[in-house]
């Protein structure tokens, strides 16, 4: 049922910089897709190519990955689910890669628990204003003031910038050290593979093959 043309085209991957990219490359290597160029840490190249498989890879800042994929500059992207939710771009989410597991939570001092029980107007600090807004408005039906911060969000309640925060929680140790705790869970998070809708149609055979092989590998890991 698929139309077939263009074997010469590169399949381009946008990977979220850091741990996510390393872990993704590990998985790709397990299913036989390697990129030797990328292992050279001293390289200043921005785009890495595997000529044999006709694949290109580049690293991008997490929140930019859905942008590259939506606009078609990359066919496939790997990024955290937090970013997928926050950016809310028109992309297909095809795989849960299973690593990078953590949770998006509402956190604050114990005393803030009470504030979440009523529909009181409170201040929420977050790096993820869209996720925070969606959670409070559409799930909790609570009107809140959202303050966008760019990092060290835990400071919010400590310096009375906000009543609570919405942030990623991995182990919770930063929270504990600062006298904060998880008050509510918004959603679980993990790394996701996203695909451009046009690429999905135009490169269906290659992308299907890729996804099926990764799925198979992930299932064998689980078992």
């Amino acid at each position, binding site marked *: 049922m*698929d139309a077939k043309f263009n074997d010469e085209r590169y399949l381009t991957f946008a990977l979220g910089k850091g741990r996510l990219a390393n872990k993704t490359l590990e998985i790709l290597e397990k299913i036989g897709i390697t990129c030797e160029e990328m292992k050279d840490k001293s390289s200043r190249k921005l785009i890495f190519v595997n000529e044999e498989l006709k694949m290109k890879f580049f690293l991008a800042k997490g929140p930019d990955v859905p*942008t590259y994929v939506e606009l078609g500059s990359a066919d496939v992207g790997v990024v955290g689910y937090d970013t997928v939710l926050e950016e809310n771009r028109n992309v*297909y*989410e*095809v795989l849960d890669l299973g690593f990078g597991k953590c949770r998006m939570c509402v956190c604050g001092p114990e005393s803030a628990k009470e504030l979440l029980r009523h529909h009181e107007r409170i201040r929420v600090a977050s790096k993820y204003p869209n996720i925070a807004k969606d959670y409070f408005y559409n799930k909790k039906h609570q009107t809140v003031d959202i303050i966008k911060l760019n990092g060290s969000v835990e400071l919010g309640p400590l310096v009375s910038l906000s009543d609570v925060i919405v942030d990623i929680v991995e182990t919770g140790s930063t929270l504990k050290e600062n006298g904060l705790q998880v008050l509510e869970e918004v959603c679980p998070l993990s790394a996701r593979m996203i695909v451009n809708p*046009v690429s999905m*149609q*135009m490169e269906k055979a290659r992308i299907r093959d890729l996804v099926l092989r990764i799925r198979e590998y992930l299932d064998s890991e689980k078992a």
Partner: protein
Amino acid sequence: MNQRLLHTPEGVRDIYGKEYARKLSIEQKLHSLIAGYGYEDIQTPTFEYFDVFSREIGTIPSKELYKFFDKEGNTLALRPDFTPSMARCAAKYFMEEKHPIRFVYQGNTFINTSNLQGKLKEVTQMGAELINDSSVEADGEIIALIVESLKAVGLKEFQVSIGMVEYFKGLCQEAGLDEETEMDLRACISGKNFFAAQELLMERNVSDPYREILLKVADLFNSMTSFEDAKRLVNNERSLSAIERLEKLDAVLKLYGVEKYVSYDLGMLSKYNYYTGVIFKAYTYGVGNAIITGGRYNTLLSRFGKDAPAVGFAIVIDDLMEALSRQQGPLPDIHEVKAMYYDADKDGDFARALKEAQMLRSNGQKVALLAKVDGEGKE
């Protein structure tokens, strides 16, 4: 100098020179092709009452419409797409008409999207609507037109995906899903979000044979590669007749000779309830979204008081231009203007040049008159 005077607002732009010449030539090619199938031109206003594009009818969220008020306080909106206007016109002027009505339209549409995402807020669309015809031949004509349009402007690699919402709807009915679950599942599947669909079906306790089958529809990477496979999965009239309709459509498309550009995707569901039968999208390299979208909408016209089936498509000309220039490289120079020089200081030379120029113009040449400046004008 006021800098603001020079800039255009974000999301809109000037189109001129070679690019505009190409745009006009593309529009002209598409238009003459569609008109060749008997489609009549129609022009509707750039803005209409907001209600025409409201949530129940339109496909664009209300917050992304450009809205304003007239002097009586009515809310008006710039059109975000043409289909509602076409439906309104058909209902208003052709209320009694029983025969097929064919419209071709072209114009700019306006969507107030977010800034800084590389998206245009004003784009040109051209499209065709075939109203009062519920036949599979009508579906075939529209899809063949899509393929022919893309070929006419010189695209070589493209693909038209065809989906059928009814198959999924029949399946949901058979499985006894409530409306909310159906809508949620639809959102997951249209986003090709397989595991969200999986989670949803678990959560809502959908019983087993159906969980598996619905997941197969959701799974883009499934093994459902033929109409026969798709039929085997279901046991309800609605889904079966959906597949039969696709089989008939496939036969019509073969008659048009366009089957090699077409593929079927039962997991292609529009987020909107607007479409009632086939839906289709055309994709090509070089742009991040579908350049043509369309489908059958048999209930939309009844919102305007005329109970009539319809099918149609819209091409986003700006996206098509981008795909063409990405695939074919820089634009060729199609601006062949001859310069006709005259010496302004010499008596009677302008009259001579004008006469020559008029002569050439009447033969179809493009000629611009230019006064000679020292050192110029040797052609």
